């Protein structure tokens, strides 16, 4: 099993100044000292707050989207030769202690990707609209997958060295969550799921996808899958 110091926690962040210091501190407090924040062209003090909390920070010169930030994290991880990356959201909805669960499931299954699923052991208080958006996204994503996954839109995922080496995300927006799963299957990477807990606050609810963003994400993903399937590989 991976030791905590062998694992890098990657947090894509955009305008998360009010919470990023706390999120990074919680991750480090959970026993994971290596934290990389990808500041996606934030207009606030996200980068300085993350540095203050002890994270290594890479900053995009302009805002390019969650998928673009995630891929920058992967590209950097590949260059550094990291063996394992766990990606979590920057809005504080995830519980960093769940990283241990993902690591355990990875050790048991030897999967290349472990998805932290909010719906295997559902936390109380997930808003019904979120459940609905996620169900629709699951149906859409699972249509293009060989297997069925309970939470295709989760931002909490563990990636092994093989996944880091092989994945090339091309969608800039939130569609990368589905793209990563479809591409991983195409490349023969194995995927497992582990239950995680989430806590939605007013802050995190304002940061997530709304209906318009969800529709744009779906159109983006469908466009790529239908017209440019080779770009998904």
């Amino acid at each position, binding site marked *: 099993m991976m030791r905590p110091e062998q694992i890098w926690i990657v947090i894509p962040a955009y305008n998360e100044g009010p919470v990023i210091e706390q999120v990074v501190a919680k991750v480090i407090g959970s026993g994971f000292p290596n934290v990389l924040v990808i500041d996606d*062209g934030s207009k606030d003090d996200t980068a300085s707050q993350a540095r203050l909390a002890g994270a290594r920070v*890479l900053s995009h*010169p*302009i805002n*390019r989207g969650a998928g673009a930030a995630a891929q*920058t994290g992967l590209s950097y991880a590949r260059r550094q030769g990291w063996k394992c990356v766990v990606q979590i959201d920057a809005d504080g909805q995830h519980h960093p202690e769940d990283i241990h669960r993902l690591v355990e499931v990875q050790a048991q299954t030897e999967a290349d990707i472990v998805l932290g699923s909010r719906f295997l052991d559902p936390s109380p208080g997930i808003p019904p609209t979120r459940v609905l958006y996620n169900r629709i996204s699951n149906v859409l994503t699972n249509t293009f997958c060989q297997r069925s996954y309970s939470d295709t839109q989760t931002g909490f995922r563990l990636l092994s060295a093989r996944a880091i080496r092989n994945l090339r995300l*091309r969608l*800039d927006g939130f569609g990368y969550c589905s793209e990563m799963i479809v591409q991983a299957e195409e490349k023969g990477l194995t995927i497992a799921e582990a239950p995680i807990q989430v806590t939605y606050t007013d802050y995190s609810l304002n940061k997530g996808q709304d209906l318009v963003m969800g529709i744009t994400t779906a159109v983006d993903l469908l*466009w790529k899958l239908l017209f440019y399937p080779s770009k998904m590989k």
Partner: protein
Amino acid sequence: MKLEVYQIIVPLASLGFVFNLFRRFLKSKASWQEAALGAAFWMSVGIFALFPDAISKAIANFFGIKSNINAIIFFCLGLIFFFQYKLFFMLKKNQMATTELARKITLQQAEKEDLQS
């Protein structure tokens, strides 16, 4: 053949656009595919302005549409969809290039910082 004012203005404007495309191609500012497609488009606009009835009736007959006005509407809708597709494709291409550039800058900066530390 009695010509209306638009039947003089539109073909002349079309010729101007074709000439401009040819000039851009010679200056290597447009590929031959772009120049050829653009020239074909503007020439067909010019010819259509010269013979609107004959062409719209021919299109209506070809597609089995009853009136030539409907044929023009369908034809224009098709053109709009085509240009929409082309614009969307260009937009996506530009977005991908911008992201690649932003990532390159970020990783170069990170490399510098890593060397310094």
